[in-house]
Structures are given as C-alpha cells and as structure tokens.
C-alpha cells in the first residue's frame, strides 16, 4: 500500500495504549541541530540589529567573534535545513483540506477542531511554518552571502548590498515571528513536543489532530510490518 499521508518510518508503535512513531532519531537530530543554529543566529543577529541588544554579542565573546560566527552558523543551518526540507516536503504540499482548515482557523485557535476535515501528517498551520521557513532561509542565505564582508566583499555592488542588508533584516524579523509561532503552537497543542523529543505521540493526539495520518498508519499496521 502506498503512503499518501505518512512518511516512511511512521508507524503504530504500540496498540495498548496507542503510541504512534512520528519522527525517527535522524530527523529529530536534524531538527534540533537546525533549531540550535536558528537560536544562535537569532541571538547574534539581534545583537547587530539594535543597539539595545548589542550586549547579546557578549555571549559569543564580543562583537568581532559574533560577526565571525554568525555567517558560518547560517551555512550550517542552511545545510541542516535542507535535510529537513527534503524529508518533509512531500507531506507539506498543499491539499484541498488545507483551504477548509484555513477558513476555519478561528475554530482551531479556539480549540474546536471537531468539525474540521481530517488531516494528514501536517495541518495548514504547520505547512505554513514549513514554507515560511523554507522561503525565509533561502532569502537569508542569499542576502547573507551578499553581506559576508570577509569572503564576498566584491560579490555585489554597494547599492545591491544595501538592499540585501535591509531584506536580510526584514526576513530575519519574519523568521523570528515564524519561529515564535512554531514554538508556541507546539507548546499550546499539548502532546506535540514529545514528537520531537521521544519521537512518538499518543493515539489520542494523532486522532485529534492528524486523523488521516493515523488512519493510514493503522491500515498499514493491519497489513503487517510493511517497509
């Protein structure tokens, strides 16, 4: 049976109680490496963004060191995120039920998901985070190279560099907003964090939030240990 709503590796881990395997160790390590890079970039970058926050560069040993490491961490993040991107892109492609979900996003925020369509592994909000991160990371790395004084100082004209710097700042603000949304949604939706720590979620969580995904995994489970 072909997987439509789930990733290879996703499976019902136990049936009593229902525990569902959502992320393998490689994906989790990949996620946390990306997260660590994002946080370090956020701290050093905010230090350059506003004089009030310049003290943050002290966490890296001063402005010079923060300036040195920031772009390199950016490169690591980009490569790390590529891993997440290729693993997750298929299930983050938009589907018809996403439109209904977005129309009823008020109900979602109110915690009333009962009347909404059944969803696969990701809901439209998660897909939004995925694509926002993807686009912003690309924008940040491209503009970042244009600003990387140490190695790429002649890459673009000064006027282009000015624009790149402003775009980099705006994209950075947007990615921080996306990041807050991502972290908050994971905390507010109880039972989500363990997917990225232990790698598993409860059956109740899967049924409540990603029923099509759970349904598919249950069907695969009946067929016996597939893949």
């Amino acid at each position: 049976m072909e997987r439509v709503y789930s990733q290879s590796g996703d499976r019902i881990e136990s049936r009593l109680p229902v525990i569902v395997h959502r992320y393998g160790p490689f994906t989790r390590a990949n996620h946390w490496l990306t997260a660590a890079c994002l946080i370090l970039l956020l701290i050093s970058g905010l230090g350059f963004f506003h004089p009030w926050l310049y003290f943050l560069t002290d966490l890296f040993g001063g402005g010079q060191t923060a300036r040195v490491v920031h772009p390199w961490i950016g490169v690591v993040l980009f490569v790390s995120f590529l891993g997440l991107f290729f693993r997750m892109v298929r299930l983050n492609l938009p589907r018809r039920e996403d439109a209904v979900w977005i129309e009823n996003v008020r109900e979602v925020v109110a915690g009333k998901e009962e009347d909404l369509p059944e969803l696969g592994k990701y809901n439209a909000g998660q897909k939004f985070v995925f694509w926002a991160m993807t686009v912003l990371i690309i924008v940040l790395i491209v503009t970042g190279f244009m600003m990387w004084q140490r190695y790429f100082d002649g890459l673009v004209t000064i006027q282009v560099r000015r624009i790149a710097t402003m775009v980099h700042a705006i994209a950075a603000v947007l990615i921080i907003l996306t990041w807050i949304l991502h972290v908050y949604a994971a905390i507010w939706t109880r039972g989500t964090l363990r997917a990225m720590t232990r790698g598993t979620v409860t059956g109740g969580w899967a049924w409540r939030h990603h029923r099509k995904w759970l349904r598919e995994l249950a069907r695969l489970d009946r067929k016996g240990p597939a893949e």
Partner: protein
Amino acid sequence: MTTAPEPLTAASNPPVEPLESNLLPSDVIRRSATTDLPEPTRQLTKVAKLIDVSRCIGCKACQSACIEWNDTHPAIEENVGSYTNPHDLTPEMFTLMRFTEWENPETNNLEWLIRKDGCMHCEDPGCLKACPAPGAIVQYSNGIVDFIHENCIGCGYCISGCPFDIPRISKVTNVAYKCTLCVDRVAVGQGPACAKACPTECITFGPKEEMQAFAEERIAELKTRGFENAGLYDPQGVGGTHVMYVLQHADKPEIYADLPADPRISPVVEAWKGVTKTVGLAAIGVMAVGAALHGFFGRPNEVTGRDREEAQRLVDEERP
C-alpha cells in the same frame, strides 16, 4: 602642560612644544549604535579641509604624508594604465589621487583632473548611521568623523552606509579604515599631514567658515580664467562635508572620477536603520508577549478522553 589651541590653518606655523589634547571625550556629538549620548558641554569650531583641484599638480606628496603619519604600508601594485596608484583606496591607503583625462567638449582641450579622494567627513555621516557596534564610529563637534578601531567588529555596514565608497576593511585586522582627518594631529593644534605636505597649497585646513571664504576667492579667480562653472563642492545632501573641493567644473562633479553630484545617505539605509528596526522589534515584542499571554490565560489544546477512545477504536477496527 598647556592645552593645544584649535587649529587655524595648516600653512601657519603650528606649535612645537608638547601640548595637551584639545579634543575631549565629551566633544563627541554622535556615537554609533548609542542612544544615550550625553549633551556636549561645548561646541568646537567646525573645521574643514579644502582641496582646490585646480591647483593640484599630482605629486602625491599628500599620499606619502598620509602613509608616513598613519604608518600604513600599502602594497606595491601593478600599473593599471593610469597614474592612480594604488588602484583604489585600501585599508592601508586612506587617501588617493584619482587621475582623469577629460576632454572638454566646449574647448576641445584635454583637461587632467586630479581629485584627492578620501573620507569627506560628512556632517550627517552614513557610516555612523549604519554602524551596529557602539562607539566604533564617532563624530566630534568640530565635524571630524573617526573610526575607533577597538570597537569595530568588521561587519562592513559602514561601506553600505557611506555615499562616497570610502571605508575599507582590512583582511588582516578585520576592522575598517579611512582618513581620520588627522584627528590626532588636529587635537594638538596641528593640521592634517596631507595639507602640511602639499607644495601648492592645493590642500588647506582650518575653520570651515574660513575655508568657505577662501574657496570663494579661489572660485572668483578661476572664473576670471574662464572656468565659469567653477564652484565649491560641499554637498548639502549629507549636511555639508568637512572635506570640500574647489572644482573647475562644479556643475559636473561626476567627471572627477565619479564624484557623486548629489550624495546622500541611501534611502534604503535610512529605512533599514529606521522603520525596519522599530517596526521589527515591535512586531517581535508583540508576538512574544501575545504568545505568552495566550499561554498563561488561554486554554491549551489538550487531548481528551474521547480522543483516546476514538484512537483506540480506530486502531482496533483497522486490525482484523
């Protein structure tokens, strides 16, 4: 020790006895990435360096004097087909004579335009506005803009900020360099090294008002010699500069190795350092506080007993 007087002109005989600096930390009127700078207690006389391009003979004594005073070591480079040497401003070359051969379409004469390039010491310095490192760029109340290297982080934002393409970042020390207007000489009553070395009085230094008056004399003389568009280059888009040029053709500054006609801090830099910073920080703050409030006072989205039962039923049903 007595305190040095404020400098008059580089041509006048400067004091020779050791003097206390007349430039105090409290004379800083702008400091990069600093929002709470104390009000200065006094206003120094605004100074300026006047470069009369029509008097320049291209001897490069100014470059040599600059190298000597600042103890820089520009690399020996290749000939790039022009007397301009080195090929560009570098972290080791704060001032550069740019040679342009220009054919005057009105007279068919070949004019050799030699402009001594370097920091213009803007009244409204773009480098200082763009700089993210507190205290890496300062402006004194006499108008001198100076880079304080121990505070510089080498990010290159000053390059984006500068309307004249002046700052250069060293690949060795990773900090930015440019003409200091010999702030260390001016502080003890001397004029800039380049002005002192100039054999034709093409470069003069003193109070800005006096330099403007002197420029007027020079311009009047140039006009009598047929340079009817002679004029002073003191661009108001950056609030005026503390390095000014007398140009034979002030109506076309671009012919002097691309001297900008109307330099100003790029609107992109203004927007980046202005609205982007304020709105960006506010948006992040609102989002973070909003999330925290929703977290404390809102109801979390929790899995119910019914969800668990339904999940169990679903999994069991799908099993044979």
